[in-house]
């Protein structure tokens, strides 16, 4: 049971906590269409886990299987020592915030939030107290008597959140809850959601196709591609050590370099550097911000290259340059924004920043 006084304890618990939900080899097909191919994933107590993927990757289907709206073709779900996938949705201690909020149009905001308690036959006085607290938490007290059609999208979002949280679920599922909001409100809600999750200490499984949103909010990201997990890691790890070329390209911007390793030396076009990578062909991911304009003094241990500026894109604080080398290699380079980038330039990067990744196309 969670209480409002719990936030710090819950936050600390998340670092060492045990598994809340165990997704074990979940597979799903709709007829001949295979949507999920044996997904195994654990959600820790108090964790904010994001399932990130493009549309059609199966992320929403996975969420619907956890909620109980779809049944898996094979595999098991375990939560708190209990087989979750055999329970109907209304018996699972899991609640969902739907993509389009799914507020009941014939009920007021207050009645929507109290719905879950009313069907569980709580006393009227208890429902009143809990609903009031839940509305206060999402700052919607003033709209208690309004019908959902009379409030804005962002407000409906808060009501949907309060309606799910008032049930005190062990696990909250969020299906692209911010996708219908405009950019500014969206950024604000990202932060609010994250701090709310810390406050209540409930595990959140958040589904999104927006990699930036995933990076900002998550404790861990599970990257899903065509029904398979590509990588499960913290945002920092998945960004700096992407496991596959798909992960490297989907999360952030990257340069994918095809290289050959011979006798401890990496050859990439006309560039080469020593490395401990295994012999043979390799695929390397090098982030544009890890390439710098070469210092005149020439730092040791860095790889240098010259190239012509083909294109530049201004991004406010930074500028993204497209550089073409004499041997045909193309690099994206992120530098400070300056209007006078032109002609042939010299760059350098630290070879340890060129991270080996598995080729996703072959996978």
């Amino acid at each position: 049971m969670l209480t409002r006084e719990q936030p710090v304890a819950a936050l600390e618990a998340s670092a060492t906590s045990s598994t809340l939900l165990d997704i074990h080899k979940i597979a799903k097909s709709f007829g001949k269409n295979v949507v999920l191919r044996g997904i195994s994933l654990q959600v820790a107590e108090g964790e904010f886990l994001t399932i990130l993927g493009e549309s059609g990757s199966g992320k929403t289907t996975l969420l619907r299987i956890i909620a109980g709206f779809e049944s898996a073709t094979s595999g098991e779900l375990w939560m708190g020592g209990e087989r979750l996938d055999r329970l109907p949705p209304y018996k699972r201690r899991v609640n969902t915030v739907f993509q389009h909020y799914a507020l009941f149009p014939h009920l007021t905001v207050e009645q929507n939030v109290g719905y879950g308690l009313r069907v569980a036959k709580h006393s009227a006085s208890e429902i009143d107290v809990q609903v009031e607290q839940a509305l206060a938490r999402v700052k919607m007290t003033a709209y208690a008597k309004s019908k959902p059609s009379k409030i804005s999208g962002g407000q409906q979002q808060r009501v949907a959140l309060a309606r799910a949280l008032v049930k005190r679920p062990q696990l909250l599922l969020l299906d692209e809850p911010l996708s219908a909001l405009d950019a500014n409100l969206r950024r604000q809600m990202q932060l609010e959601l994250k701090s709310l999750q810390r406050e209540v200490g409930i595990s959140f499984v958040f589904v999104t196709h927006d990699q930036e949103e995933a990076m900002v909010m998550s404790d861990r990201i599970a990257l899903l591609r065509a029904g398979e997990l590509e990588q499960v890691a913290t945002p920092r790890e998945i960004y700096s050590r992407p496991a596959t070329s798909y992960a490297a390209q989907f999360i952030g911007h990257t340069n994918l370099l095809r290289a050959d390793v011979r006798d401890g030396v990496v050859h990439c076009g006309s560039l080469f550097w020593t490395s401990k990578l295994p012999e043979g062909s390799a695929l390397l991911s090098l982030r544009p911000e890890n390439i710098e304009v070469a210092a005149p003094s020439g730092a040791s241990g860095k790889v240098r290259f010259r190239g012509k500026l083909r294109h530049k894109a201004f991004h406010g604080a930074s500028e993204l340059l497209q550089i073409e080398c004499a041997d045909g290699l193309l690099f994206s380079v992120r530098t400070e924004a300056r209007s006078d980038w032109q002609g042939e330039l010299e760059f350098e990067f630290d070879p340890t920043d060129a991270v080996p990744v598995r080729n996703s196309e072959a996978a």
Partner: protein
Amino acid sequence: MFSRAYRAVVTVPPLLWVTVFLLIPYALMFRYSFRTVSASQTIVHSWSLANYRQLFTVDVYWQTLLRSMWIAARVMLCSLLLGYPLAYFLSFYAGAKKDLLYQFVIIPLWVSYLVRAYAWMTILGSVGVLNTLLQYVHLTRHPLEFLLYSPFAVVLTLTHIYTPFTFLPIYASLEHIPRNLVEASSDLGASPAQTFWRVIFPLSIPGVLAGATFAFVLSLGDFLAPLLLGGPSGIMISNIVVSLFGAAYNWPLGAAISFCMLLIVVGLLFFSERLEKKWSFS
């Protein structure tokens, strides 16, 4: 946006139609309801409330009117009890067969009213299909007389005829319920029965009201089913109006009764429209 000529072409014909074939006849009927019939069977031009007085004081008129409303109410109830579960099943559980089953509900509407009424006569008659069968299996020794030429036969036939009219608006309103509301309800811990009574049914009320109004209004004004299957005990108010305009040659009284029915129907439509608005959300 549209030229004046275009707007005139589009709006004038229907307005003209409604005026010539609806408003003017109603006005004439209203005028007739104040006239009287002389002893020599001529219609006397007067402004008399005698016809309305007769309707409410002569037993056969007001009793038949009440009985007609009672029959219409039973038809309404029966077609709701048949139409709602059918619409619910089709909308929520029929899956891929939905369109086919929907056609099966609609097809009876293509069959002439008379054919369907006569079909019930052959089923319910004293040497009809049902009585023959009951005697054949020795459940009854004599034909059951109450089956045909009774209010029962009228209710049964009208229910058969008007259930599709009740089904259609209910089905439409159920189809409009976003399925994620049903999922949300289940997600919040509501059992399927709770979801039905707390979410699905309230959101289908506009359809139920529309369907109930159809069944009641159409049955109330029906005169063929009682004529063919009602017998003396199943006479409805429209049969009386028909005979007043015909054999009895009392147009003024017929007009007065018709006008009262018109008031009842318009009142009902107004009332159900208000209720439907109250229960629709978008």
